């Protein structure tokens, strides 16, 4: 049996990275929007941190002076000049899906096509101005439908592995960025000793990672920085934690090793990153610098992505 084209593997991988980005950006906008409603006074700096998490701060400032809700939302959803806007993300999802169409099940293709059409409908009717929560809810629903068809209709073969790898790599990156933007909230500082943690701030972190209900379920009313860091980095029960993503990445790479009969450098690299994550306790991470840990992780994650692209011949 001939193996699939490297370009197809690339298309599947990036299709899912963009889908994950599409969904996570929507989640970030949602979290930011709630903040702007509940605490009008600090809304500006909240939007700035949302843009920083999404990696769009610099580009935003090239076009806009202040961080107003209207401008930020418009920029993150609709701006064609912003490569990470929802508009551009879903366009990239669909373009990659078209490119790899022969590798997709009919159900998966139709779910992606429908996600793109739904966004277009919302977009054209101006929902991002008149009914933002509705548009964002649609994004989450459509992404869930795509994920559902991935699980419900695809063969568990190489195609599935690259689809999963793309979504896991992107998700690990996004979770690290969410934490990094708000790392100061989680740091033990002299001012915050004895005072309660800013609950709205940590709610926002959890909400951005779609983890607020799960966290309450597990921790009840007990909230402390180490618990949040531990939850988002180490808890393999949480499907958006970094450890969960790396567990699954290893599962996918191991399956590819069996299917292709060869182990890749990417596999070794992923294993070493996984060990690095499991071996650092939350207290140690916070003690020696959460920001440094996250920046280092984001770079490692990007290096793994590049190694996967090289090992599986995504391009010439």
């Amino acid at each position: 049996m001939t193996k699939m084209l490297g370009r197809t593997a690339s298309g599947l991988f990036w299709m899912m990275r963009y889908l994950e980005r599409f969904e996570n950006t929507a989640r970030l906008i949602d979290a930011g929007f709630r903040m702007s409603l509940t605490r009008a006074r600090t809304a500006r700096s909240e939007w700035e941190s949302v843009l920083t998490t999404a990696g769009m701060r610099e580009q935003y400032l090239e076009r806009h002076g202040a961080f107003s809700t209207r401008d930020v939302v418009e920029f993150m959803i609709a701006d064609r000049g912003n490569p990470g806007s929802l508009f551009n993300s879903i366009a990239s999802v669909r373009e990659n899906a078209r490119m790899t169409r022969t590798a997709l099940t009919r159900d998966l293709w139709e779910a992606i096509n429908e996600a793109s059409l739904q966004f277009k409908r919302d977009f054209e009717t101006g929902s991002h101005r008149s009914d933002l929560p509705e548009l964002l809810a649609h994004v989450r629903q459509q992404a869930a439908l795509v994920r559902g068809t991935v699980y419900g209709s695809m063969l568990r073969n190489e195609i599935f592995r690259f689809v999963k790898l793309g979504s896991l790599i992107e998700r690990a990156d996004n979770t690290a960025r969410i934490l990094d933007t708000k790392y100061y909230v989680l740091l033990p500082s002299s001012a915050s000793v004895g005072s309660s943690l800013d609950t709205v701030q940590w709610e926002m972190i959890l909400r951005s990672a779609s983890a607020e209900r799960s966290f309450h379920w597990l921790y009840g009313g007990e909230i402390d920085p180490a618990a949040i860091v531990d939850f988002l980095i180490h808890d393999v029960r949480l499907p958006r934690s970094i450890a969960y993503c790396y567990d699954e990445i290893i599962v996918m790479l191991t399956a590819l090793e069996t299917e292709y009969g060869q182990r890749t450098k990417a596999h070794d690299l992923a294993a070493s990153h996984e060990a690095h994550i499991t071996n650092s306790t939350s207290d140690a991470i916070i003690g020696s610098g959460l920001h440094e840990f996250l920046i280092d992780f984001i770079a490692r994650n990007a290096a793994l992505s590049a190694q996967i692209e090289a090992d599986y011949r995504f391009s010439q």
Partner: protein
Amino acid sequence: MVEPQKFFDEMHGFGDGVRAPYEVYSKLLAEMDETRLKGKAAQAEAFFRRTGITFNVYGEAEAEERLIPFDLLPRIISAREWRTLTRGIEQRIKALNAFLHDIYHRQEILRAGRIPEHLVTQNAAFLPQMVGVNPPGGIYTHIVGTDLVRTGPDEFYVLEDNARTPSGVSYMLENRETMLKMFPELFSNVGVESISDYPSLLRRALAASPPLACMGKPTIAVLTPGIHNSAYYEHAFLADQMGVELVEGRDLKVVDGRIAMRTTCGYHPIDILYRRVDDEFLDPLNFNPDSLLGVPGIFDIYRAGGITLANAPGTGISDDKALYSYMPDIIEFYTGQKPLLKNVETWRCSEPQSLSYVLDNLADLVVKEVHGSGGYGMLVGPAASRDEIETFRTKLKTNPSNYIAQPTLSLSTVPIFTDSGLAPRHVDLRPFVLVSPQSIDVVPGGLTRVAMKEGSLVVNSSQGGGTKDTWVLSDD
């Protein structure tokens, strides 16, 4: 205003009652409720949109994907009519392949003086690189889509032979799928020939002409220019239906004397390439050096027997519009028979007498570029404004040999479903033909293109044309 009665209608003839092939269908149609039909039309459009059956339009600012309008009323052809067409098409394709072999080898038809030599050897579509090359299986045109038009009960004309890379077969198949979903009851009452095995026939036809270097079961792939090509949907559809890889030029390179595709585990050789990239862009080393769509060196591998290209390079000359007018001679020369299907009368503007006739009668003629396709760059005299005609007159005078002219044919009509009921619209027909060393298969059906605008004769999708399902009846 065009008087509808002056055209032959495939359902109602010249206004003298329902024609035999439509008898059963027309009774069933009469029982259908108009509201239900309207619902079906909307349903069909939603289906096409959801499935993403679209084409890209060149020259539009945003490379928008568009739906081709689909009409619910089938175009029906009787078994007897189909037999006549099939025989005529087979004869033509045999002659085309013999002609291609001849002009790239001994050129006997030129020596016999049946065709002016310069029309072949000076033709941009003639590839000197193909001289002396023997394509695998002896086949030049593995896939053909012959364009036919009808003007009366027994009057069929061949408009174009489309021997390069005919497109539209995915619409033939998806249109049928849509009709089966919408109107299952019609198919249990009317005996319609099935077309659903086209992809497996295509696969078999391709596999029947392996290259010398092929060992064992051939690896087949479809070569596409990429997702921005107007027919990308079709390329992906065919690769998917045949269960073969859809490759782009950037996936391929020469490895150990073979064309190989880059897989996740290294390079794997391809035996047969159904290429949907034109000759010019196939190989930057041998043809257009600026092409990014092809594979450097693929033509050398082809000549050495390392790969089959379908269709063979250089087949474009056989559907050249200037040579078209010689088709009756070509058919007679190679088959010894009179052509079974008619050619449309054609004036070659390169000939001074014809040119002056054409210039005098522009308002009544259709003028086409010799190398044009897709309805771009043509003049439909009766539908053109005075300005358009004058612009074309200048073009013709400047470069007469770039044009041919034909009478405006009274294309047959088939009713379409409009908001105000049924209305006749002009159609053409493109049956698809698969050629292997063993057989020529004309798939019983085809793509019926329909000019959606009242009175319009232009059926090309790029110019707003739509499509219909095409039924070939099983029994007379």
